């Protein structure tokens, strides 16, 4: 039978031509789309490079024109051109250390409870609730800290409610969701056989958790703590509202937590709005931004290295 004789269907020749045109069009579309996707894939690298570039562009005069000895000084007093970064670094570190000391035990314990002890209904209720906490804007928590927490801290006997301790409390609460959810993932990744083995050997649930599950999840827990610290050191608005913003370094002692401090983030947020563009103050604030960028970059890169490079792939991926 000759198909070319059949009048109701297009000829073989026509069909072949159409197929070729279709394939060509598809190829062209796909070429554009697939390369677009490849470009989008690279975007993260481009963006991080751009961020660093623009921070350097605006911030480098600070490091080039101001002697390092001055930047390492202990007085931040822009009006007299005193650019000592130490009090700001001190404020950020103090508040972050305080937050870590509070948040890590609470966060790890909560994750252990949710992962190992809680009945299913509680897990299903509490996990979304913790996500909700992560979703509350930091300015709202800062506002709440400002109107409720600060007066409480003052009642504890501090001369003012706006102290490093107030900031640490608030930051601890804000970094809890990060610590809890990453620790929980780490606990979840511990193979069931470990638990079964421990229980079969007669361990109690607590012994199993303490001696088997937690050590097995160790690296994940370290990552959770590091990312929690990263979250705390970069927090801006809430900290600015409750730490009192005094750029000084008090004498060391446990009392330091009940003095006002000023963090790097709060300094940028509070002062950038008022400086003349291109002034030394402007450049130094970008310089503080560079310091913050480098600190968080180091923390996150280290955490990624601890994960062991690539993220586990579950399925998917073209053949």
């Amino acid at each position, binding site marked *: 039978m000759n198909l070319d004789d059949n009048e109701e269907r297009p000829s073989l020749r026509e069909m072949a031509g159409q197929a070729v045109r279709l394939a060509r069009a598809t190829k062209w579309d796909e070429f554009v789309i697939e390369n677009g996707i490849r470009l989008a*894939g690279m975007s993260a690298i481009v963006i*991080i490079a751009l961020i660093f570039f623009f921070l350097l562009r605006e911030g480098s005069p600070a490091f080039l024109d101001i002697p390092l000895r001055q930047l390492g000084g202990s007085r931040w007093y822009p009006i007299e051109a005193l650019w000592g970064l130490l009090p700001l670094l001190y404020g950020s570190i103090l508040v972050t250390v305080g937050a870590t000391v509070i948040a890590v035990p609470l966060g790890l314990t909560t994750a252990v409870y949710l992962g190992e002890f809680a009945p299913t209904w509680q897990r299903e209720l509490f996990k979304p609730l913790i996500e909700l906490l992560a*979703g509350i804007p*930091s300015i709202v928590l800062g506002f709440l800290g*400002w109107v409720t927490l600060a007066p409480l801290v003052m009642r504890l006997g501090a001369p003012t409610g706006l102290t490093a301790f107030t900031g640490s409390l608030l930051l601890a*609460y804000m970094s809890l969701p990060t610590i809890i959810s990453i620790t929980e993932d780490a606990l979840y990744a511990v193979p069931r056989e470990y638990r079964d083995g421990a229980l079969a050997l007669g361990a109690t649930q607590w012994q199993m958790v303490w001696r088997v599950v937690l050590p097995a999840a160790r690296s994940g827990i370290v990552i959770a703590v590091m990312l929690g610290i990263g979250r705390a050191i970069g927090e801006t608005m809430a900290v600015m509202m409750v730490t009192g913003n005094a750029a000084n370094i008090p004498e060391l002692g446990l009392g330091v937590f009940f003095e006002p401090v000023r963090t790097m983030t709060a300094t940028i947020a509070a002062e950038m709005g008022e400086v003349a563009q291109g002034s030394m103050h402007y450049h130094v604030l970008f310089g503080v931004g560079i310091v*913050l960028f480098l600190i968080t*970059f180091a923390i996150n890169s280290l955490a990624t290295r601890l994960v062991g490079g690539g993220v586990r792939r579950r*399925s*998917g991926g073209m053949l």
Partner: protein
Amino acid sequence: MSRQRTNEIARWLITAVAFLVILPIFLVIAYIFYNGIGALSWEFLTQPPRQGMTQGGIAPAILGTIFLTLGTAVAAIPLGIGAAIYLAEYAGDNRLTRAIRLAIVNLAGIPSIVYGLFGLGMFVLFLDYGTSILAGSLTLGLMTLPVVISTAEEAILAVPREFRVVSLSLGATRWQTIRHQVLPHALPGIITGVILGLGRAAGETAPILFTVAAFYLPDLPRSIFDQTMALPYHLYVISTQVPGMPLSLQYGTALVLMLIVLSMTVVATIIRTAMRRRREW
């Protein structure tokens, strides 16, 4: 002390600590709700502030936040989903892919105030967009990108490999497979990630401080090159910068902001739960 007893005590302590952490979340939300609900009225939601912001409403700030969130969506969604498709379907296990992943983790970890500085340096000054909705949206969009990428990638990877195998074996090209098999099944997960990311962007203050936010601007913006008020910054202003603000207005503003952001989180969670129940594989 017997180990059973230790076990009991440990269990009890762990439970107590967990509740100590979790219950205040209820309290925080309830407290703001309780104190703010009195300020909510039709006037509060639809009128501009008056009398040095001590009276009237917060309408320009609400609208400004909506504009900024839409702008963020436009900036973050195409790039984020594109990057997620690349990572899930195209990227090989090589140095470039590892560099991309490292970059995403670091983008997620950069403090929001540093994004604000970057937005000021690049969009406001270098590209000369001025303090504008455009500059603010782009800044927020880049900040949201890592959330969108990682959740969208996860959603794409969750589509079973068999779908791809069958599609490819029927002669579909790689893009056809992605377009018609992978993306439709990953869509609910992608939407969840996008909403979560946008919710976070809507509540951010630090990135918009120097890029778009106006202290007081009763008129609505006319174009993307105008400044606008925004809820998070407005809350900051009325709680710390304006003396004599009635506390009820501050709580009311905090409540509206919290409701907007939390409702987005809740919607995202509902979509995700529904999707898990309905999944056919």
